[in-house]
């Protein structure tokens, strides 16, 4: 956990549900950012079953489909203010579960990366919980390879279970601590202007990163990475990406090569944000099969509303075997896990004293 002055928020995740016996959740259809086919229906079924087993009250399928048809709701990777309000009014749900597939690779050993977040409904949607899980069949080979998983369905089930355990713990207000597979990977270069005080409270809008990688949707994936990392700090109030997306579309803002100050001014105004986080992703590579290493390269920047300046900038480059010295010990098998540690390192530096 960070040594910074910003306080981690992992212990407060469940407080939003305090005083409620049980909340009603709508499970949105899964969004696939992997760029490859994925068993989205099976995944959603696993999510629904897992949530039901954990005693969470779910909105029935028919009502959700009826609502989506009535409102012509096609994008389910986020929720905007209008959708959140009408969903609450018409169906009575308290929150929506938005799930994204980042990677679904069924070749042996299989690899799966998922993101999920719970967003409240009503007039002001708020991110209540966000987490990601990435697993590879060869994460824990064990003695004589007995721990290898070659069945993608089994790995999917394990990944979903792990993700839902995190959600249940959050709903039960149990402190899980910050999830990190290891020591955060620090950025190569970083700098913070003195005008940015990480101890202050900020409302932050995260925009999709400018994507120069060959990986499809890497910009959106990096947005989720930072959402997950920043949610750990209670002084950052994060704006739901669905709201940011809706405003970008409404105001016809195209973020070519990043956020310009002219676009930033509009976004600061319409989102009532203090900071805008964006950047460029150069590499977000997973590998197929048993041999290879994931590689991630990105730069991140923070634009400040008051000073109209870039108050933070960092550059991170890492590979999955950066911490390997012998026998693949310490190897990271998925780009999500690698990027999570890199982003964690960026956040540690961003909020450090």
């Amino acid at each position, binding site marked *: 956990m960070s040594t910074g002055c910003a306080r981690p928020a992992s212990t407060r995740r469940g407080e939003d549900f305090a005083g409620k016996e049980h909340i009603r959740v709508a499970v949105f259809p899964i969004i696939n950012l992997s760029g490859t086919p994925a068993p989205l229906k099976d995944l959603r079924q696993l999510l629904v079953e897992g949530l039901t087993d954990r005693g969470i009250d779910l909105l029935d399928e028919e009502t959700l489909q009826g609502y989506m048809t009535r409102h012509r709701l096609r994008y389910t990777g986020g929720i905007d203010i209008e959708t959140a309000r009408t969903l609450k009014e018409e169906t009575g749900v308290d929150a929506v579960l938005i799930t994204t597939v980042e990677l679904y690779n069924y070749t042996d050993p299989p690899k799966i990366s998922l993101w999920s977040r719970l967003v409240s409904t009503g007039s002001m949607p708020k991110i209540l919980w966000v987490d990601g899980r990435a697993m590879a069949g060869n994460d824990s080979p064990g003695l004589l390879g007995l721990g290898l998983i070659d069945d993608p369905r089994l790995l999917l089930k394990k990944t979903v279970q792990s993700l839902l355990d995190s959600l249940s713990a959050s709903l039960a207000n149990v402190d899980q601590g910050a999830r990190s597979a290891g020591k955060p990977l620090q950025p190569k270069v970083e700098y913070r202007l003195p005008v940015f005080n990480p101890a202050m409270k900020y409302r932050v809008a995260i925009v999709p990163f400018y994507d120069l990688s060959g990986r499809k949707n890497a910009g959106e994936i990096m947005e989720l990475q930072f959402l997950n990392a920043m949610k750990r700090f209670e002084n950052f109030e994060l704006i739901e990406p669905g709201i940011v997306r809706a405003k970008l579309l409404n105001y016809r803002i195209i973020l070519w090569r990043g956020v310009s100050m002219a676009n930033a001014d509009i976004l600061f105004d319409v989102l009532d944000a203090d900071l805008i986080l964006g950047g460029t992703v150069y590499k977000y590579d997973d590998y197929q099969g048993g041999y290879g290493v994931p590689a991630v390269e990105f730069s991140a920047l923070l634009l400040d509303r008051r000073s109209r300046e870039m108050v933070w*900038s960092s550059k991170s480059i890492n590979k999955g075997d950066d911490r390997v010295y012998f026998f693949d010990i310490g190897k990271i098998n998925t780009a999500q896990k690698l990027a999570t540690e890199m982003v964690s390192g960026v956040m540690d530096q961003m909020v450090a004293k």
Partner: protein
Amino acid sequence: MENRMIRKMKTIFMKLKTNLAIMGMFTLVIFLTACASFRKADMYRDPNMDFGSIKTVAVLPLANLTRETLAADRVRDVLANSLYATGGVYVVPPGEVARGLSRAGVINFSSPSIEEVKKLGGILSVDAVITGVVKEYGEVRSGSVAANVVSMSLQVVETQTGKVIWAASTTKGGVSAWDRLLGGGGEPADDVTERAVNDLIEKLF
């Protein structure tokens, strides 16, 4: 007889010592001259320019003369971040630079005209723009040995006058004698890029 032998040995030893001293001095002179000429050739600095007056800069997209399609973008990103991280100058965010280039109608980003630089200075409110070329990026081979090399040159152009006030180039990485003797793939391209950029920043400041 013995004394004669000793005297002869002493003479030979003295001659050898003198020869070695002459050779040593000659080598030193060659090395020193080489260093001096190298320094002068790879950097230009306008002697009349007050570099302390440059507080805000824009790093323009670099020209890419390599086979690696993202080489220029990668190098530019490292350069902009490292320059910003010095705390000495404010570097305009890349999105704002892109907007400025579009508004100023700059066609050739790596070598804008004086008028274009002046226009950019007004739009982006910057004191100088940095342009440059990435000449080499990636692996070079020498026999059976391969290593990463990064070669680039930069120019700082003042936006008030459109004059080049600083220019330098650097090459880092490549196959060393050590690599040739013991093999090995050299440093990763990212580390070589960082070294090359830091070298240029050191020259600038």
